[in-house]
């Protein structure tokens, strides 16, 4: 397994930068350039390098979609949020018309995790094979239903690719295209499933839309084992801990604090904060990342845990 690319990091609902947001970034950047040389591209790069990511970049707004680069010929993808659309365009351009196989692993079937499929270019190309895996019995019917009138103008018959659906038994390991894939039931409205991918001595865990009941030690132990020694854990950190266990209890999401604790207990190497709250702007996510890194530092045990915040287009090497 070579790495992971984030195509959609946002929770619940896609969001976009507004004109006011872009203007704020430009103003901050121009102020930072005041009195400094801007004569060369090197000068400009130096100014941008000194700015926070929330100013010089953006976390982006596509809903959940994460690509696992297994190093093999087939594509591996988690969830089909709106980030599936740019992924599909990139994959189509990359392989230049050669038939491809896409293995797509569904955490669950809520709207923000399936909305990309009607716009997934590879599904329209004859010769491609799309294999959609999940543990919900309604896997196929839910995806067909979102493309039925009046929700969408064209149904599955428009797809030229072969569409296959595979039920994965939760709690079991499955060998798929040379990758060991283990699923686990998570706490979320209507259930969700986490995925652990193991290949070539590397492990990546995708665990989103997952609430952690803190009063249940057995639940904690299960997740510590599931995250055990992972090189990367992509983790639902949508809310603050206070919100997650009070006003937003039972909404099916978790926090940065629980992410740090579980990864520390599991001896994981990298925690990637994911499924960002759609009302958070770039500055709010920057602040959450800084706080989470601080928490990791002040609670660190024998080994450090690397903490990052997912953004659309982010590449993580494994």
């Amino acid at each position, binding site marked *: 397994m070579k790495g992971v690319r984030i195509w959609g990091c946002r929770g619940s609902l896609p969001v976009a930068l507004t004109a006011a947001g872009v203007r704020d970034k430009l103003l901050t950047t121009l102020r930072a350039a005041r009195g400094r040389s801007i004569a060369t591209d090197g000068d400009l790069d130096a100014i941008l390098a000194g700015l926070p990511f929330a100013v010089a970049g953006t976390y982006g707004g596509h809903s959940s979609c994460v690509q696992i680069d297994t190093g093999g010929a087939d594509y591996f993808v988690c969830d089909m949020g709106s980030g599936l659309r740019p992924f599909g365009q990139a994959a189509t351009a990359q392989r230049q018309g050669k038939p491809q196989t896409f293995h797509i692993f569904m955490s669950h079937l809520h709207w923000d995790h399936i909305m990309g499929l009607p716009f997934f270019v590879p599904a329209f190309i004859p010769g491609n094979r799309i294999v959609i895996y999940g543990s919900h019995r309604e896997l196929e019917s839910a995806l067909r239903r979102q493309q039925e009138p009046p929700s969408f103008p064209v149904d599955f018959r428009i797809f030229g690719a072969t569409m296959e659906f595979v039920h994965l038994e939760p709690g079991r390991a499955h060998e798929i295209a040379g990758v060991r894939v283990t699923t686990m039931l998570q706490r979320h409205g209507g259930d969700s499933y986490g995925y652990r991918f193991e290949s070539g001595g590397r492990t990546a865990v995708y665990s989103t839309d997952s609430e952690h009941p803190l009063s249940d030690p057995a639940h904690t132990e299960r997740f510590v084992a599931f995250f055990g020694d992972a090189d990367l854990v992509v983790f639902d950190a949508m809310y603050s*801990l*206070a919100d997650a*266990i*009070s006003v937003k209890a039972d909404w099916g999401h978790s926090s940065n604090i629980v992410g740090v604790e579980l990864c520390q207990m599991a001896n994981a190497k990298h925690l990637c904060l994911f499924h960002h709250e759609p009302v958070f702007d770039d500055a709010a996510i920057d602040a959450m990342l800084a706080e*989470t890194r601080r*928490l990791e530092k002040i609670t660190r045990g024998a080994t450090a845990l690397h903490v990052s915040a997912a953004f659309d287009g982010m590449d993580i090497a494994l």
Partner: protein
Amino acid sequence: MHLQIATRRIADTVVARPEGRIDHRTAAPFEDALAPLLADAVARRGPLVLDFSAIDYISSVGLRVLMVAARQMREHQTLLLVAALQGVVAEIFAISRFDRVLVVTATLDDALAKCSPEALAIHRSGNRSANPETAP
């Protein structure tokens, strides 16, 4: 694991001072030790102040215990305050946003000032209404 909480009564207020770490191993004993103090506060309709000056770490599980306790006290129109957070614990409260959902004060004096002027006056004069005692 047994967690000791030293308690003292100051006028209408009980001040409880737990010591050590409240983590995934000690949160349950902490919850057990807190239960009779909450029941007592509800019964007498008097404030309960948790003096956290001797707590050096609290995990999410420990914070959940505080959330449940605060909810229980609110339901009975009784006040729970957390006072004198130290270094790491103060940062954990801020990062978790618990400093926004619980009544948190910088010092024990500040907590008493919020809930009982009489208790504050006694505390400041060094005249406590009862000897220190220890609850399980």
